């Protein structure tokens, strides 16, 4: 079910009132089936832009984005997306009905839809909140519902754009553990955008480090630490040091 993602010489230019901006410059990388890839870089490195191209919200000026070997065609989506903004949930639907949305669009029968939604809410630890509206949930809970919604209709790839950047540090740690567990259970192909080095090392099978202005691939670092990873272990700290070195932020 999981699909591979290929970016081939992807370039994105856009024109503002005053000048032409090269946002992403000749970026190529592959995400293998069931691989967890982190896109890491400073602001302005085009990581969200790259994710938006994989999601199909933007089209590259040059180059191709392939999912499961096929080009994006705009209407047949096979991607789950989790955004940073808590407001991504539909406020007019309960948590369960939010998770059901993608299944509804696939014409899954009502009873089956409900069962699947409850199963994924259980996976993110929110089975007791199925009939609650989003505004009654905390930010962390809303993001958990968003994750359940993104994977419930079983997309080939899961895209996450800094989903926990707006959460407090403690909740963020908890969410990272949850993502790790959910990924180990579901084995989706994941592209995870972040500017947080520790988060990338905690979650990624591989980290693609991006450079800013224009966005380019600076380094690709494979991580083969055993999961779940211990952020206090020497190997974990060493991996962070390597990545910080590539970012040019080592002291």
């Amino acid at each position, binding site marked *: 079910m999981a699909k591979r993602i290929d970016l081939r010489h992807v370039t994105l230019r856009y024109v503002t009132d005053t000048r032409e901006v090269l946002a992403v410059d000749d970026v190529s990388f592959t995400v293998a089936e069931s691989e967890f890839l982190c896109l890491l870089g400073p602001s302005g490195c085009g990581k969200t832009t790259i994710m938006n191209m994989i999601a199909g*919200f933007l089209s590259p000026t040059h180059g191709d984005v392939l999912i499961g070997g096929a080009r994006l065609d705009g209407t047949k989506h096979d991607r789950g997306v989790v955004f940073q903004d808590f407001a991504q949930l*539909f406020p*007019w639907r309960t948590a369960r009905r939010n998770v059901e*949305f993608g299944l509804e*669009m696939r014409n899954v029968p009502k009873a089956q839809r409900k069962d699947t939604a409850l199963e994924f809410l259980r996976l993110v630890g929110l089975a007791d909140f199925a009939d609650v509206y989003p505004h009654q949930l905390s930010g962390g809970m809303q993001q958990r519902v968003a994750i359940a919604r993104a994977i419930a209709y079983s997309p080939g790839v899961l895209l996450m754009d800094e989903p926990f950047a707006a959460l407090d540090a403690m909740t963020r740690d908890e969410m990272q553990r949850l993502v790790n567990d959910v990924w180990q259970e579901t084995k989706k192909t994941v592209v995870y955008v972040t500017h947080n080095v520790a988060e990338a090392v905690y979650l990624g099978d591989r980290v693609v480090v991006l450079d800013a202005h224009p966005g380019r691939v600076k380094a690709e670092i494979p991580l083969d630490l055993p999961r779940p990873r211990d952020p206090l272990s020497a190997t974990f700290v060493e991996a962070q040091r390597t990545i910080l070195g590539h970012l040019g932020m080592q002291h």
Partner: protein
Amino acid sequence: MLRGAITIALLLAAWEYFARSGIFSRAITPPLETIAVALVSMIADGSIFRHTLATMLRVAIGLAIALAIAIPLGMLMGRYALWERILRPAVAVLMPIPSLAWVPLVVLWFGIGNVATVLIVVYASTFSLLYNVWMGVKTINPIWVRAAQVMNAHGWRLFRHVIWPAALPSIITGIRLAFGRAWIAVIGGELLASPQWGLGKLIFDAKEFLNADTMLAALFVIGVLGLFFERVVFQLLERATVNRWGMASGARR
């Protein structure tokens, strides 16, 4: 609720004081008791119900037509630039024209009667509704549309499951405003396009005989009905939808 009742009681007391002060003759500023008698006699012979029903039906039909025009067009305008370009100038020209200014022409075309009055109501209510639907759809949080589109919601299903509920707070505001305007227009339309029954007609006929008590009784009924719709119907509608979803302004987090 209690505060509202106090305000109304004070208003009634002020009227009573004014009516009995002798500034004008009792015949043209009747005290509450006389108005009540007029109202009760109209209730007793059932005429007030017939007038009210006629007016309410015109408002209901006019509003239903306005909804049928404004909701689809407003959604298309909010969603597609082409529709916006085509319709925006028409809205800009037609919206500021007071609906009552159309009465002589409408009467010329359709004669005096229900058709003319309902058309005036449609004209009065369509534009504020259209404007609110249009702006409501235009200012939807784009993240909802994106989230829906990656889950394969397109075309009609996107409208039905995302754009409609997302724009509902503005649409309800639009219906509220449209109702208010329809209510103003129907009374004016009844005065000028004079069908047989209706609260506006009742006031106009009472004027011929200087029946101030009947006129005031009719005004009282109009006020009570307006209050009922505003405080009961629309509030229940909001409670069942946007308030429940945390989308009403103020309840948003």
